[in-house]
């Protein structure tokens, strides 16, 4: 365990050194949150009985998840595969799952940092108060994180080269970022686009977190939980079955 922690810590330092994760995962959602609060913080969002700030909090907390799961995780794994770092673990007494585990933990930590920053700015700086249960909200956040990471792992397994990983992660990351409601408030979308956006897994996670944070009676809660759990199971299985070390 101590040895794994050492490995993780070096990977984490490398993660912080290259600022992509911090910029896209932490600074960006915090910045957008402040902007939305300034522009429309107290206005009601789409006649649903909550403000834009309340809506933005639950959405922007997903940006960190999005950045780590669809960018950080698959790109790092593709890079390590290309550099034969994963392969090298086969010729050591450690399993290559160690390095994958370390990369997974690193990305989760960045997502946690992002969530903490967004929450701190919202609560301390913008006077946000959660109406719903904090514990239920944390549960929905964790479920969203795990299910999105499983999609990221699947992308890392299915893409064999850095080039294809770059293309695929961009094709997944940007629509998820802009259409799921993570950055642009979902309430502003026309109904047609809302329907399209609902297909994205992250949209379901964000809706779940929104409902939990606002304490809205969650009719479709079980449906969304089951959906996200199924995504986690299916993507994890595909990821494990198709993973290539080199």
């Amino acid at each position: 365990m101590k040895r794994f922690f050492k490995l993780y810590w070096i990977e984490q330092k490398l993660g912080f050194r290259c600022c992509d994760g911090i910029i896209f995962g932490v600074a960006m959602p915090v910045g957008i949150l402040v902007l939305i609060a300034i522009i429309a913080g107290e206005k009601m969002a789409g006649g649903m009985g909550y403000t834009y700030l309340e809506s933005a909090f639950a959405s922007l907390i997903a940006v960190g998840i999005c950045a780590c799961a669809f960018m950080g995780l698959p790109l790092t794994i593709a890079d390590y595969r290309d550099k034969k770092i994963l392969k090298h673990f086969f010729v050591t007494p450690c399993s290559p799952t160690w390095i994958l585990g370390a990369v997974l933990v690193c990305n989760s930590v960045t997502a946690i940092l992002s969530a903490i920053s967004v929450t701190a700015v919202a609560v301390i700086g913008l006077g946000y108060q959660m109406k719903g249960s904090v514990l239920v909200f944390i549960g929905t956040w964790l479920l969203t994180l795990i299910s999105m990471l499983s999609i990221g792992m699947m992308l890392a397994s299915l893409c064999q080269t850095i080039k294809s990983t770059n293309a695929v992660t961009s094709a997944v990351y940007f629509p998820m970022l802009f259409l799921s409601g993570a950055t642009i408030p979902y309430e502003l979308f026309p109904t047609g686009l809302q329907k399209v956006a609902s297909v994205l897994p992250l949209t379901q996670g964000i809706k779940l977190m929104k409902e939990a944070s606002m304490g809205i009676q969650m009719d479709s809660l079980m449906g969304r939980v089951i959906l996200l759990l199924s995504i986690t199971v299916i993507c994890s299985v595909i990821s494990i079955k198709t993973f290539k070390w080199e």
Partner: protein
Amino acid sequence: MITCIKVESITKQFNGRKVVDNLSFEVRKQEVFGLLGHNGAGKSTTIETILGLKKADSGKATILGMNPLKQRKQIFEKVGVQLQASHYQNNIRVEEICQEITALYKAPVDYHQLLKKFKLEQFEKMPVSKLSGGERQKLSVVLALIPAPEIVFLDELTTGLDTAARREVWKTLKDLKKEGTTIFLTTHYMEEAESLCDRICLIKEGKKIIEGTVQEIIEQSPYENLEEAYLWFMGEEII
């Protein structure tokens, strides 16, 4: 004479093409053994099959009497490996890659001492990417030595280095040899084989052409030096 690595008739095919063809040889304890051949002769595939990174279609290889496919953990506590053209994480520093590799072993040696021995201690805080080619190859030897291995595998360690850097890497390998480490290396530089190897094995299209000491191999050809003898055995025209 204790055998460290035993390769028995291994064959490995890719898409119906035999890359390693019924290859057998032994590496003895404390010797430097060189596997020589052109680019694409099957050297790296041979090394990777011996290490268990690839599964042989037939035949088997054992390292220290153990099967690398089944006893990976035990073997790699005692065997250090440098894979061909391996790279490191972006932005990683010399001390960090050393710490990372150290964390993988139960009884590693102190990497500071290794860095000192290879004259790399002043680069400890430097990013690996800032090292010169020769320094980076010496670092990869340091990393392969962190487990205090009985055997080290070095796949084309000096490819792409200039003469001075290559000679410096040779010196470090000669020191290792003096200390009794068994070294298995692949190369396509004859000078390197002459300077370092106790015994060599020439392969062509995955098949063994000849095996023996450098002297024995030269004597079996009509030529006076290894480079010409090598070309003659490989069936190339000698200009």
